[in-house]
């Protein structure tokens, strides 16, 4: 379908319904479709390796299988927030102030928040099984929770309204502030916990010797979720592009209508 779609720049701003009809379901390209298929194959692999082929852990039994989702989602969330910070900087410090960077930042943050939520959920389930509690005030856990809340706030700021450039600038500044905030939070929590208790709570990934098949499953998970992330970002930022176009088209329609009104009035 993508070959028949016109260049986005050439969308006539006055015909909103035609725009929405034409652009329905066309956030994909040849590349993103290949990426999507590859992601799907790897996810199936991950299910097979994670649930069937990999052995249960000696102490954790089958609950170790949560790790095959938990670790990749955490990795993707951190990757996503890194991309958001980088894109924010690109938007702010490049002279062009391209909205494309802003949309990548926004799309990446949305997906990061979703994956971070999955990390927190899977992590607390695993914690309940292994540590006996859903939550522990460990530095890493606390920083992760703060990351989650910070980017929920970032997404709220993106929805404040105003022009696209206003949204982009405001959220780019916030995206960069988040980058300096997180190390400070992590540092303070680390200092707090290290003063507070002698031994840290069980370190989930420390120096554990891993079975080869387990390590492989985890590796498959990391790649599968990374591909899933890129696939989602590609689609989401294109969808955001269409939303922006739609907004602009709305404005153009309103302008045309007002002009028509004044013409009628001057005629009458």
């Amino acid at each position: 379908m993508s070959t028949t779609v016109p260049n986005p720049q050439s969308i006539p701003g006055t015909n909103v319904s035609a725009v929405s009809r034409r652009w329905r379901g066309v956030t994909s390209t040849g590349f993103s479709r290949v990426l999507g298929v590859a992601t799907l194959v790897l996810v199936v692999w991950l299910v097979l390796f994670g649930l069937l082929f990999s052995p249960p852990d000696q102490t954790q039994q089958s609950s170790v299988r949560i790790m095959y989702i938990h670790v990749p989602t955490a990795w993707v969330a951190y990757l996503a927030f890194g991309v958001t910070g980088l894109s924010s900087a690109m938007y702010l410090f490049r002279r062009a102030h391209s909205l494309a960077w802003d949309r990548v930042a926004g799309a990446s943050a949305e997906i990061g928040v979703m994956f971070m939520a999955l990390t927190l959920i899977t992590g607390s389930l695993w914690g309940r099984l292994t540590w006996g509690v859903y939550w522990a005030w460990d530095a890493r856990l606390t920083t992760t929770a703060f990351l989650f809340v910070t980017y929920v706030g970032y997404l709220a700021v993106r929805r404040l309204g105003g022009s696209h450039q206003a949204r982009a600038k405001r959220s780019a500044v916030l995206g960069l502030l988040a980058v300096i905030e997180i190390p400070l939070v992590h540092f303070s929590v680390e200092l707090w916990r290290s003063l507070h208790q002698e031994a840290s709570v069980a370190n989930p990934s420390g120096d554990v010797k891993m079975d080869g098949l387990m390590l492989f499953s985890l590796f498959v998970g990391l790649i599968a979720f990374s591909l899933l992330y890129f696939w989602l970002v590609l689609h989401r930022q294109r969808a955001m592009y269409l939303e922006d176009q739609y907004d602009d088209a709305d404005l153009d329609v309103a302008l045309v209508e007002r002009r028509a009104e004044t013409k009628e009035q001057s005629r009458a």
Partner: protein
Amino acid sequence: MPALTAAVGSDMWRTARLVAAKDLGIEWRSRQVTNQVLPFAGLTLVLFAFALDRDDITARVAPGLFWLATTFSLIVLVQRTFAVETADGALDTLRVAGVDPAGIYLGKALALAAQLVVLEALLLVGVIVFYASHIRPAGIVLVIVTAFLATSGLAFVGTLYGGLAAGAKGRETLLPLLLLPVVAPVLIGATRAFEAAFGTRGGEGIRAGVEISDGWPWVGMLAIFAAVFGAAGVLAFGPLLEEA
């Protein structure tokens, strides 16, 4: 009026002084903070006592409650300090007049810090009266330095995020969501430093017999926090005002 612009805009610190004097002047006349925010802060201290119920517990957690009450009041103060600017388009006027945004930022942060200091002084009295806390004589310097740095950090962060949310729809509900995660390091650091100065937590628990010197690493962290966000605010406030 280029002459005026040059006179005001060229000197960041002069602008800051003027803006701070303006903000404090408005407060002096309206008494909104004095009549509303200070009682609110005092009320939270009383409510904490209701919730925690036991005297020995409130005495032990007094430093934390002090900084929690300060943090909650900070949100109200920031709302107020930007309501003044956005109400009659005052911020736009400042911007059109070509006033240095860094100067505006520092001025507003300064006025906010001044209000916070008054609030904290009264809260300290409240904590001593209601929670039977007492500061160790050797800890007085620690309390003053901690309060100074924590207040600077809170004022810098509050002004920065207040400016970010200023003029936007739904800012009343947005500001706490943005601000509270960011000020968490101040809450942690200032509370631990005050605990050292107050000598709470001593006698039992994991940190039996906390020393005054245990508080000073936190002071270092508070200083880093204030410096980082002060610099970020000076740099970022211009772009934020441009689009507001």
